[in-house]
Protein backbone atom coordinates (compact mmCIF):
# COMPACT_ATOMS: atom_id res chain seq x y z
CA UNK A 1 0.00 0.00 0.00
CA UNK A 2 1.45 3.36 -0.92
CA UNK A 3 1.78 5.99 1.81
CA UNK A 4 -1.04 8.15 0.45
CA UNK A 5 -3.43 5.19 0.53
CA UNK A 6 -2.37 4.29 4.04
CA UNK A 7 -3.04 7.85 5.11
CA UNK A 8 -6.45 7.71 3.51
CA UNK A 9 -7.25 4.47 5.35
CA UNK A 10 -6.26 6.02 8.68
CA UNK A 11 -8.46 9.06 8.02
CA UNK A 12 -11.31 6.80 6.91
CA UNK A 13 -11.08 4.60 9.99
CA UNK A 14 -10.95 7.59 12.30
CA UNK A 15 -13.97 9.20 10.63
CA UNK A 16 -15.92 5.98 10.86
CA UNK A 17 -15.06 5.67 14.54
CA UNK A 18 -16.14 9.28 15.12
CA UNK A 19 -19.46 8.67 13.36
CA UNK A 20 -20.09 5.48 15.32
CA UNK A 21 -19.25 7.28 18.56
CA UNK A 22 -21.56 10.18 17.80
CA UNK A 23 -24.25 7.69 16.83
CA UNK A 24 -23.82 6.06 20.22
CA UNK A 25 -24.27 9.41 21.98
CA UNK A 26 -27.39 10.15 19.96
CA UNK A 27 -28.82 6.72 20.74
CA UNK A 28 -28.22 7.20 24.45
CA UNK A 29 -30.06 10.52 24.26
CA UNK A 30 -32.92 9.05 22.24
CA UNK A 31 -33.40 6.14 24.66
CA UNK A 32 -33.36 8.54 27.60
CA UNK A 33 -36.02 10.75 26.02
CA UNK A 34 -38.17 7.67 25.42
CA UNK A 35 -37.64 6.64 29.04
CA UNK A 36 -38.80 10.04 30.27
CA UNK A 37 -42.03 9.62 28.34
CA UNK A 38 -42.59 6.12 29.74
CA UNK A 39 -45.16 5.24 32.38
CA UNK A 40 -46.09 8.01 34.87
CA UNK A 41 -44.80 5.90 37.77
CA UNK A 42 -41.36 5.66 36.21
CA UNK A 43 -41.43 9.31 35.18
CA UNK A 44 -42.05 10.32 38.77
CA UNK A 45 -39.10 8.28 39.97
CA UNK A 46 -36.91 9.66 37.18
CA UNK A 47 -37.82 13.19 38.25
CA UNK A 48 -36.81 12.42 41.82
CA UNK A 49 -33.47 11.13 40.63
CA UNK A 50 -33.05 14.12 38.32
CA UNK A 51 -33.56 16.48 41.26
CA UNK A 52 -30.94 14.56 43.21
CA UNK A 53 -28.53 14.83 40.28
CA UNK A 54 -29.32 18.51 39.83
CA UNK A 55 -28.40 19.14 43.46
CA UNK A 56 -25.14 17.23 43.13
CA UNK A 57 -24.04 18.55 39.76
CA UNK A 58 -25.76 21.93 39.74
CA UNK A 59 -26.10 23.41 43.19
CA UNK A 60 -22.82 21.82 44.29
CA UNK A 61 -20.99 23.57 41.44
CA UNK A 62 -22.18 27.08 42.35
CA UNK A 63 -19.30 28.09 44.67
CA UNK A 64 -16.47 27.06 42.36
CA UNK A 65 -18.19 28.45 39.26
CA UNK A 66 -18.83 31.74 41.08
CA UNK A 67 -15.18 32.07 41.97
CA UNK A 68 -13.83 31.12 38.55
CA UNK A 69 -16.32 33.28 36.64
CA UNK A 70 -15.55 36.24 38.91
CA UNK A 71 -11.80 35.88 38.28
CA UNK A 72 -12.36 35.46 34.54
CA UNK A 73 -14.33 38.74 34.63
CA UNK A 74 -11.44 40.51 36.35
CA UNK A 75 -8.91 39.00 33.93
CA UNK A 76 -10.95 40.00 30.88
CA UNK A 77 -11.27 43.55 32.20
CA UNK A 78 -7.51 43.73 32.86
CA UNK A 79 -6.59 42.35 29.46
CA UNK A 80 -9.11 44.58 27.72
CA UNK A 81 -8.01 47.66 29.62
CA UNK A 82 -4.39 47.03 28.62
CA UNK A 83 -5.28 47.73 24.99
CA UNK A 84 -8.26 50.06 25.47
CA UNK A 85 -6.19 52.40 27.64
CA UNK A 86 -3.90 53.21 24.71
CA UNK A 87 -6.98 54.15 22.70
CA UNK A 88 -8.43 56.15 25.56
CA UNK A 89 -11.54 53.99 25.47
CA UNK A 90 -11.62 52.66 29.02
CA UNK A 91 -15.38 53.12 29.14
CA UNK A 92 -15.64 50.17 26.75
CA UNK A 93 -14.29 47.75 29.36
CA UNK A 94 -17.82 47.12 30.67
CA UNK A 95 -19.23 46.15 27.29
CA UNK A 96 -16.14 44.07 26.44
CA UNK A 97 -16.57 42.03 29.62
CA UNK A 98 -20.34 41.79 29.32
CA UNK A 99 -20.36 40.58 25.74
CA UNK A 100 -17.46 38.13 26.02
CA UNK A 101 -18.77 36.64 29.24
CA UNK A 102 -22.39 36.19 28.21
CA UNK A 103 -21.76 35.05 24.66
CA UNK A 104 -18.73 32.87 25.16
CA UNK A 105 -16.79 32.54 28.35
CA UNK A 106 -19.67 32.10 30.78
CA UNK A 107 -21.05 29.03 28.98
CA UNK A 108 -17.62 27.63 28.15
CA UNK A 109 -16.10 27.99 31.61
CA UNK A 110 -19.26 26.60 33.19
CA UNK A 111 -19.18 23.64 30.82
CA UNK A 112 -15.54 22.92 31.62
CA UNK A 113 -16.12 23.06 35.38
CA UNK A 114 -19.19 20.82 35.02
CA UNK A 115 -17.18 18.36 32.90
CA UNK A 116 -14.59 18.22 35.66
CA UNK A 117 -17.16 17.74 38.39
CA UNK A 118 -20.09 15.87 36.82
CA UNK A 119 -18.95 14.44 33.48
CA UNK A 120 -16.08 12.64 35.18
CA UNK A 121 -18.36 11.54 38.03
CA UNK A 122 -20.91 10.08 35.59
CA UNK A 123 -18.22 8.08 33.84
CA UNK A 124 -16.68 6.88 37.10
CA UNK A 125 -20.06 5.99 38.63
CA UNK A 126 -21.30 3.97 35.67
CA UNK A 127 -17.91 2.36 35.00
CA UNK A 128 -17.64 1.28 38.65
CA UNK A 129 -21.16 -0.12 38.46
CA UNK A 130 -20.13 -2.09 35.40
CA UNK A 131 -17.08 -3.50 37.20
CA UNK A 132 -19.00 -4.40 40.39
CA UNK A 133 -21.83 -6.06 38.39
CA UNK A 134 -24.31 -3.43 39.59
CA UNK A 135 -25.38 -2.79 35.99
CA UNK A 136 -26.00 -6.53 35.58
CA UNK A 137 -27.98 -6.49 38.83
CA UNK A 138 -30.18 -3.67 37.51
CA UNK A 139 -30.76 -5.61 34.33
CA UNK A 140 -31.76 -8.81 36.11
CA UNK A 141 -34.23 -6.75 38.17
CA UNK A 142 -35.80 -5.65 34.88
CA UNK A 143 -34.55 -2.10 35.45
CA UNK A 144 -33.08 -0.57 32.35
CA UNK A 145 -29.76 1.14 33.22
CA UNK A 146 -30.49 3.92 30.72
CA UNK A 147 -33.87 4.68 32.30
CA UNK A 148 -32.51 4.34 35.78
CA UNK A 149 -29.16 6.09 35.48
CA UNK A 150 -28.89 8.11 32.28
CA UNK A 151 -32.30 9.73 31.73
CA UNK A 152 -32.30 11.60 35.09
CA UNK A 153 -28.78 12.87 34.38
CA UNK A 154 -29.80 14.25 30.98
CA UNK A 155 -32.75 16.00 32.52
CA UNK A 156 -30.72 17.43 35.40
CA UNK A 157 -27.88 18.65 33.20
CA UNK A 158 -30.10 20.18 30.51
CA UNK A 159 -31.84 22.21 33.25
CA UNK A 160 -28.86 23.01 35.45
CA UNK A 161 -26.36 24.14 32.84
CA UNK A 162 -28.41 27.21 31.74
CA UNK A 163 -29.02 28.11 35.39
CA UNK A 164 -25.33 27.87 36.17
CA UNK A 165 -24.51 29.91 33.08
CA UNK A 166 -26.81 32.76 34.12
CA UNK A 167 -25.10 32.75 37.49
CA UNK A 168 -21.65 32.61 35.89
CA UNK A 169 -22.62 35.55 33.62
CA UNK A 170 -23.54 37.59 36.66
CA UNK A 171 -20.35 36.70 38.50
CA UNK A 172 -18.25 37.50 35.42
CA UNK A 173 -19.86 40.93 35.16
CA UNK A 174 -19.26 41.47 38.88
CA UNK A 175 -15.62 40.55 38.32
CA UNK A 176 -15.42 43.12 35.54
CA UNK A 177 -17.01 45.74 37.78
CA UNK A 178 -14.42 45.00 40.46
CA UNK A 179 -11.75 46.21 38.06
CA UNK A 180 -14.03 48.91 36.65
CA UNK A 181 -14.53 50.51 40.05
CA UNK A 182 -10.95 50.12 41.25
CA UNK A 183 -9.00 50.60 38.03
CA UNK A 184 -11.15 52.61 35.61
CA UNK A 185 -13.27 55.55 36.58
CA UNK A 186 -16.55 53.68 37.02
CA UNK A 187 -18.87 53.66 39.97
CA UNK A 188 -20.60 50.35 40.57
CA UNK A 189 -23.87 51.85 39.32
CA UNK A 190 -22.33 53.36 36.21
CA UNK A 191 -20.56 50.07 35.43
CA UNK A 192 -23.84 48.19 35.66
CA UNK A 193 -25.61 50.74 33.50
CA UNK A 194 -22.84 50.49 30.91
CA UNK A 195 -23.17 46.68 31.02
CA UNK A 196 -26.93 46.84 30.57
CA UNK A 197 -26.59 49.21 27.63
CA UNK A 198 -24.00 46.99 25.98
CA UNK A 199 -26.04 43.80 26.18
CA UNK A 200 -28.98 42.74 24.09
CA UNK A 201 -31.13 39.79 25.06
CA UNK A 202 -29.71 37.84 22.16
CA UNK A 203 -26.25 37.83 23.75
CA UNK A 204 -27.53 36.07 26.84
CA UNK A 205 -29.86 33.77 24.90
CA UNK A 206 -27.16 32.44 22.57
CA UNK A 207 -25.10 31.52 25.62
CA UNK A 208 -28.06 29.74 27.19
CA UNK A 209 -28.93 27.80 24.05
CA UNK A 210 -25.35 26.62 23.77
CA UNK A 211 -25.28 25.65 27.42
CA UNK A 212 -28.28 23.32 27.07
CA UNK A 213 -26.47 21.48 24.30
CA UNK A 214 -23.30 21.42 26.41
CA UNK A 215 -25.26 19.80 29.23
CA UNK A 216 -26.53 17.08 26.89
CA UNK A 217 -23.07 16.48 25.44
CA UNK A 218 -21.41 16.22 28.87
CA UNK A 219 -24.01 13.70 30.05
CA UNK A 220 -23.92 11.62 26.89
CA UNK A 221 -20.13 11.38 26.75
CA UNK A 222 -19.76 10.71 30.48
CA UNK A 223 -22.35 7.95 30.47
CA UNK A 224 -21.18 6.39 27.22
CA UNK A 225 -17.61 6.20 28.50
CA UNK A 226 -18.89 4.62 31.71
CA UNK A 227 -20.88 1.95 29.89
CA UNK A 228 -18.03 1.03 27.55
CA UNK A 229 -15.44 0.54 30.29
CA UNK A 230 -13.35 -2.62 30.50
CA UNK A 231 -12.82 -4.89 33.50
CA UNK A 232 -10.84 -3.64 36.48
CA UNK A 233 -10.10 -0.51 38.46
CA UNK A 234 -7.56 0.79 35.96
CA UNK A 235 -10.18 0.83 33.22
CA UNK A 236 -12.48 2.95 35.40
CA UNK A 237 -9.71 5.54 35.62
CA UNK A 238 -9.13 5.43 31.87
CA UNK A 239 -12.84 5.82 31.14
CA UNK A 240 -13.01 8.84 33.42
CA UNK A 241 -10.05 10.47 31.72
CA UNK A 242 -11.51 9.78 28.28
CA UNK A 243 -14.85 11.20 29.37
CA UNK A 244 -13.21 14.48 30.41
CA UNK A 245 -10.99 14.83 27.34
CA UNK A 246 -13.68 13.87 24.82
CA UNK A 247 -16.28 16.08 26.54
CA UNK A 248 -14.01 19.13 26.39
CA UNK A 249 -13.30 18.46 22.73
CA UNK A 250 -16.95 17.92 21.78
CA UNK A 251 -18.07 20.97 23.79
CA UNK A 252 -15.57 23.14 21.91
CA UNK A 253 -16.71 21.72 18.57
CA UNK A 254 -20.37 22.30 19.44
CA UNK A 255 -19.46 25.80 20.60
CA UNK A 256 -17.76 26.50 17.27
CA UNK A 257 -20.72 25.21 15.25
CA UNK A 258 -23.27 27.19 17.26
CA UNK A 259 -21.21 30.37 17.28
CA UNK A 260 -20.82 30.11 13.52
CA UNK A 261 -24.57 29.55 13.14
CA UNK A 262 -25.41 32.52 15.36
CA UNK A 263 -22.94 34.65 13.44
CA UNK A 264 -24.42 33.65 10.10
CA UNK A 265 -28.02 34.30 11.15
CA UNK A 266 -27.14 37.56 12.84
CA UNK A 267 -25.16 38.69 9.79
CA UNK A 268 -28.30 38.28 7.68
CA UNK A 269 -30.36 40.37 10.05
Amino acid at each position, binding site marked *: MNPAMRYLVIVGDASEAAFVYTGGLAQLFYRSVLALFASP*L*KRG*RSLERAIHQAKLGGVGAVPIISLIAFFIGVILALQGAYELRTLGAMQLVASLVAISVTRELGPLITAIVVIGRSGSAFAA*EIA*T*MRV*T*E*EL*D*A*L*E*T*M*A*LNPVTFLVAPKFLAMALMLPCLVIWADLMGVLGGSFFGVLGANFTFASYMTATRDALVLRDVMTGLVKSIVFGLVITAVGCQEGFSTGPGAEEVGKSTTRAVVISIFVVVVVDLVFTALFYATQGAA
Partner: protein
Amino acid sequence: MTDAPAISARALRVQFGEREVLHGVDLDIYRGETVVILGGSGSGKSTLLRTMVGLEKPHSGEVRIGGVDLATASEREMDSVRRKIGLAFQSGALIGSLTVGENISLPLLEHTGLNPSTIDVMVRIKLEQVGLSGFEHYMPSQLSGGMKKRAAFARALSMDPEILFFDEPSAGLDPIMAAGIDNLILNLKEAYSMTMVVVTHELASAFLIADRIVVLDRGSIVAVGPAKELRESTHPRVRQFLDRVPDSDSDDEVDHLRLFTEGA
Protein backbone atom coordinates in the same frame (compact mmCIF):
# COMPACT_ATOMS: atom_id res chain seq x y z
CA MET B 1 -41.30 -34.90 36.84
CA THR B 2 -43.52 -34.71 33.82
CA ASP B 3 -43.94 -30.91 34.03
CA ALA B 4 -42.40 -28.69 31.43
CA PRO B 5 -39.03 -27.66 32.82
CA ALA B 6 -38.77 -24.24 34.46
CA ILE B 7 -35.45 -23.69 32.72
CA SER B 8 -34.15 -25.60 29.77
CA ALA B 9 -30.87 -25.19 27.96
CA ARG B 10 -30.30 -26.89 24.62
CA ALA B 11 -26.95 -27.29 22.84
CA LEU B 12 -25.83 -24.10 24.51
CA ARG B 13 -22.59 -22.63 23.23
CA VAL B 14 -21.15 -19.39 24.55
CA GLN B 15 -18.10 -17.67 23.15
CA PHE B 16 -16.01 -14.75 24.31
CA GLY B 17 -14.25 -13.57 21.19
CA GLU B 18 -12.56 -16.63 19.71
CA ARG B 19 -12.64 -18.63 22.94
CA GLU B 20 -15.60 -20.94 23.45
CA VAL B 21 -16.48 -21.23 27.13
CA LEU B 22 -19.50 -23.56 26.95
CA HIS B 23 -19.40 -26.37 24.40
CA GLY B 24 -23.01 -27.41 23.89
CA VAL B 25 -24.67 -27.69 27.29
CA ASP B 26 -28.03 -29.48 27.65
CA LEU B 27 -29.79 -29.06 30.96
CA ASP B 28 -33.37 -29.13 32.25
CA ILE B 29 -34.26 -27.70 35.64
CA TYR B 30 -37.71 -28.50 36.98
CA ARG B 31 -40.05 -26.50 39.14
CA GLY B 32 -39.34 -26.72 42.84
CA GLU B 33 -35.98 -28.42 42.65
CA THR B 34 -32.64 -27.16 43.88
CA VAL B 35 -29.92 -27.74 41.35
CA VAL B 36 -26.29 -27.13 42.20
CA ILE B 37 -23.89 -26.47 39.38
CA LEU B 38 -20.53 -27.66 40.59
CA GLY B 39 -17.26 -27.00 38.86
CA GLY B 40 -13.74 -25.70 39.28
CA SER B 41 -12.50 -22.24 38.40
CA GLY B 42 -12.79 -21.64 34.69
CA SER B 43 -15.20 -24.53 34.18
CA GLY B 44 -17.78 -22.12 32.77
CA LYS B 45 -20.24 -22.40 35.65
CA SER B 46 -20.66 -18.66 36.16
CA THR B 47 -21.01 -18.18 32.41
CA LEU B 48 -23.73 -20.85 32.38
CA LEU B 49 -25.55 -18.99 35.16
CA ARG B 50 -25.19 -15.62 33.41
CA THR B 51 -26.49 -17.15 30.18
CA MET B 52 -29.45 -18.72 31.99
CA VAL B 53 -30.56 -15.30 33.26
CA GLY B 54 -29.99 -13.58 29.92
CA LEU B 55 -26.90 -11.55 30.82
CA GLU B 56 -24.80 -13.34 28.19
CA LYS B 57 -26.05 -14.12 24.72
CA PRO B 58 -25.47 -17.69 23.54
CA HIS B 59 -23.48 -18.08 20.35
CA SER B 60 -25.74 -20.96 19.37
CA GLY B 61 -28.34 -23.14 21.09
CA GLU B 62 -31.05 -21.74 23.33
CA VAL B 63 -32.12 -21.12 26.91
CA ARG B 64 -35.81 -21.10 27.76
CA ILE B 65 -37.32 -19.88 31.00
CA GLY B 66 -41.00 -20.73 31.31
CA GLY B 67 -41.00 -21.48 27.58
CA VAL B 68 -39.58 -18.08 26.51
CA ASP B 69 -36.43 -18.26 24.40
CA LEU B 70 -34.15 -15.63 25.93
CA ALA B 71 -32.15 -15.05 22.76
CA THR B 72 -35.16 -14.10 20.63
CA ALA B 73 -37.41 -12.59 23.32
CA SER B 74 -38.50 -8.97 22.91
CA GLU B 75 -37.48 -6.45 25.56
CA ARG B 76 -40.99 -6.67 27.03
CA GLU B 77 -40.95 -10.49 27.20
CA MET B 78 -37.48 -10.33 28.71
CA ASP B 79 -38.72 -7.95 31.40
CA SER B 80 -41.57 -10.28 32.31
CA VAL B 81 -39.09 -13.16 32.58
CA ARG B 82 -36.77 -11.03 34.71
CA ARG B 83 -39.58 -10.24 37.13
CA LYS B 84 -39.97 -13.96 37.77
CA ILE B 85 -36.33 -14.51 38.63
CA GLY B 86 -33.99 -13.33 41.35
CA LEU B 87 -30.24 -13.43 41.12
CA ALA B 88 -27.91 -13.10 44.10
CA PHE B 89 -24.54 -12.04 42.75
CA GLN B 90 -21.26 -13.36 44.07
CA SER B 91 -20.12 -9.99 45.38
CA GLY B 92 -23.63 -8.83 46.19
CA ALA B 93 -23.73 -6.15 43.48
CA LEU B 94 -25.81 -3.91 45.73
CA ILE B 95 -26.26 -0.43 44.30
CA GLY B 96 -23.57 1.50 46.18
CA SER B 97 -25.42 4.81 46.21
CA LEU B 98 -28.52 3.35 47.91
CA THR B 99 -28.99 2.05 51.44
CA VAL B 100 -29.60 -1.65 52.04
CA GLY B 101 -33.32 -0.95 52.49
CA GLU B 102 -33.50 1.11 49.29
CA ASN B 103 -31.70 -1.65 47.41
CA ILE B 104 -34.33 -4.16 48.47
CA SER B 105 -37.25 -1.85 47.87
CA LEU B 106 -35.97 -0.79 44.44
CA PRO B 107 -37.65 -3.51 42.34
CA LEU B 108 -40.85 -3.16 44.40
CA LEU B 109 -40.98 0.61 43.88
CA GLU B 110 -40.25 0.32 40.19
CA HIS B 111 -42.51 -2.56 39.31
CA THR B 112 -45.39 -2.84 41.73
CA GLY B 113 -46.94 0.54 42.53
CA LEU B 114 -47.44 -0.58 46.14
CA ASN B 115 -47.59 2.25 48.63
CA PRO B 116 -44.39 3.12 50.49
CA SER B 117 -45.54 1.88 53.89
CA THR B 118 -46.35 -1.57 52.50
CA ILE B 119 -42.98 -1.64 50.80
CA ASP B 120 -41.30 -0.71 54.09
CA VAL B 121 -42.94 -3.65 55.80
CA MET B 122 -41.91 -5.99 52.98
CA VAL B 123 -38.33 -4.78 53.16
CA ARG B 124 -38.27 -5.48 56.89
CA ILE B 125 -39.67 -8.98 56.34
CA LYS B 126 -37.08 -9.78 53.68
CA LEU B 127 -34.26 -8.50 55.87
CA GLU B 128 -35.50 -10.58 58.75
CA GLN B 129 -35.56 -13.65 56.51
CA VAL B 130 -31.86 -13.27 55.83
CA GLY B 131 -30.97 -12.32 59.39
CA LEU B 132 -30.23 -8.67 58.75
CA SER B 133 -33.02 -7.01 60.74
CA GLY B 134 -32.27 -3.41 61.55
CA PHE B 135 -29.71 -2.92 58.80
CA GLU B 136 -32.00 -1.14 56.33
CA HIS B 137 -30.34 2.23 56.85
CA TYR B 138 -26.78 0.99 56.38
CA MET B 139 -24.92 1.69 53.16
CA PRO B 140 -23.57 -1.41 51.34
CA SER B 141 -20.01 -0.18 51.96
CA GLN B 142 -20.62 -0.45 55.72
CA LEU B 143 -21.42 -4.17 55.52
CA SER B 144 -19.07 -7.14 55.70
CA GLY B 145 -18.78 -9.55 52.77
CA GLY B 146 -21.20 -12.05 54.28
CA MET B 147 -23.74 -9.37 55.14
CA LYS B 148 -23.56 -8.01 51.60
CA LYS B 149 -24.32 -11.48 50.28
CA ARG B 150 -27.28 -11.80 52.60
CA ALA B 151 -28.55 -8.36 51.66
CA ALA B 152 -28.23 -9.43 48.02
CA PHE B 153 -30.35 -12.52 48.83
CA ALA B 154 -32.98 -10.28 50.37
CA ARG B 155 -33.00 -8.16 47.22
CA ALA B 156 -33.23 -11.24 45.00
CA LEU B 157 -36.18 -12.39 47.13
CA SER B 158 -37.96 -9.03 47.14
CA MET B 159 -40.21 -9.71 44.16
CA ASP B 160 -41.05 -13.23 45.42
CA PRO B 161 -39.43 -14.82 42.38
CA GLU B 162 -40.33 -18.22 40.98
CA ILE B 163 -36.70 -19.03 40.29
CA LEU B 164 -33.78 -17.98 42.42
CA PHE B 165 -30.20 -18.05 41.16
CA PHE B 166 -27.18 -17.91 43.45
CA ASP B 167 -23.68 -17.23 42.20
CA GLU B 168 -21.12 -18.67 44.62
CA PRO B 169 -23.21 -18.00 47.73
CA SER B 170 -20.56 -19.11 50.20
CA ALA B 171 -17.33 -18.26 48.38
CA GLY B 172 -14.93 -16.23 50.46
CA LEU B 173 -16.86 -16.66 53.72
CA ASP B 174 -15.69 -18.23 56.92
CA PRO B 175 -17.14 -21.71 57.67
CA ILE B 176 -19.68 -20.40 60.17
CA MET B 177 -20.98 -17.74 57.82
CA ALA B 178 -21.00 -20.27 54.94
CA ALA B 179 -23.04 -22.71 57.04
CA GLY B 180 -25.44 -19.87 57.80
CA ILE B 181 -25.90 -19.23 54.09
CA ASP B 182 -26.52 -22.94 53.45
CA ASN B 183 -29.13 -22.89 56.17
CA LEU B 184 -30.77 -19.90 54.61
CA ILE B 185 -31.04 -21.70 51.27
CA LEU B 186 -32.45 -24.79 53.00
CA ASN B 187 -35.02 -22.65 54.77
CA LEU B 188 -36.10 -21.01 51.53
CA LYS B 189 -36.37 -24.43 49.97
CA GLU B 190 -38.58 -25.72 52.78
CA ALA B 191 -40.70 -22.62 53.18
CA TYR B 192 -41.40 -21.70 49.57
CA SER B 193 -40.45 -24.75 47.49
CA MET B 194 -38.79 -22.34 45.13
CA THR B 195 -36.82 -23.43 42.09
CA MET B 196 -33.20 -22.69 42.93
CA VAL B 197 -30.03 -22.81 40.88
CA VAL B 198 -26.84 -22.53 42.88
CA VAL B 199 -23.41 -22.19 41.31
CA THR B 200 -20.62 -23.18 43.64
CA HIS B 201 -17.35 -25.00 44.04
CA GLU B 202 -17.93 -25.79 47.72
CA LEU B 203 -18.45 -29.54 47.93
CA ALA B 204 -19.90 -29.72 51.43
CA SER B 205 -22.49 -27.07 50.73
CA ALA B 206 -23.37 -28.63 47.36
CA PHE B 207 -24.14 -32.02 48.91
CA LEU B 208 -26.10 -30.43 51.71
CA ILE B 209 -28.50 -28.30 49.65
CA ALA B 210 -28.81 -30.02 46.29
CA ASP B 211 -31.64 -32.16 44.95
CA ARG B 212 -29.55 -32.66 41.87
CA ILE B 213 -25.94 -31.80 41.13
CA VAL B 214 -24.58 -30.90 37.74
CA VAL B 215 -20.82 -31.20 37.37
CA LEU B 216 -19.38 -28.86 34.79
CA ASP B 217 -15.84 -29.35 33.54
CA ARG B 218 -14.07 -27.24 30.91
CA GLY B 219 -17.35 -26.04 29.45
CA SER B 220 -19.17 -29.38 29.24
CA ILE B 221 -21.47 -31.23 31.62
CA VAL B 222 -19.71 -34.41 32.76
CA ALA B 223 -22.29 -35.66 35.26
CA VAL B 224 -25.85 -34.93 36.37
CA GLY B 225 -27.67 -36.68 39.15
CA PRO B 226 -28.88 -36.73 42.72
CA ALA B 227 -26.19 -36.03 45.31
CA LYS B 228 -26.02 -39.65 46.40
CA GLU B 229 -25.59 -40.99 42.89
CA LEU B 230 -22.87 -38.47 42.22
CA ARG B 231 -20.93 -39.38 45.31
CA GLU B 232 -20.53 -42.88 43.87
CA SER B 233 -19.69 -41.69 40.37
CA THR B 234 -16.71 -43.31 38.69
CA HIS B 235 -16.22 -40.59 36.09
CA PRO B 236 -12.52 -39.68 36.39
CA ARG B 237 -13.04 -35.88 36.37
CA VAL B 238 -15.89 -36.10 38.87
CA ARG B 239 -13.81 -38.32 41.13
CA GLN B 240 -10.88 -35.97 40.81
CA PHE B 241 -13.09 -33.05 41.80
CA LEU B 242 -14.77 -34.85 44.69
CA ASP B 243 -11.52 -36.34 45.99
CA ARG B 244 -9.71 -33.02 45.61
CA VAL B 245 -6.89 -34.43 43.49
CA PRO B 246 -4.77 -31.78 41.75
CA ASP B 247 -4.37 -31.74 37.98
CA SER B 248 -1.39 -33.78 36.89
CA ASP B 249 -0.10 -31.32 34.26
CA SER B 250 2.97 -30.52 36.31
CA ASP B 251 3.74 -34.22 36.81
CA ASP B 252 3.51 -34.71 33.08
CA GLU B 253 6.16 -32.08 32.55
CA VAL B 254 8.50 -33.68 35.04
CA ASP B 255 7.97 -37.11 33.44
CA HIS B 256 8.58 -35.60 30.06
CA LEU B 257 11.88 -34.09 31.19
CA ARG B 258 12.92 -37.33 32.87
CA LEU B 259 12.26 -39.21 29.64
CA PHE B 260 14.73 -36.97 27.89
CA THR B 261 17.43 -36.98 30.54
CA GLU B 262 17.26 -40.67 31.34
CA GLY B 263 17.05 -41.70 27.73
CA ALA B 264 20.30 -39.93 26.92
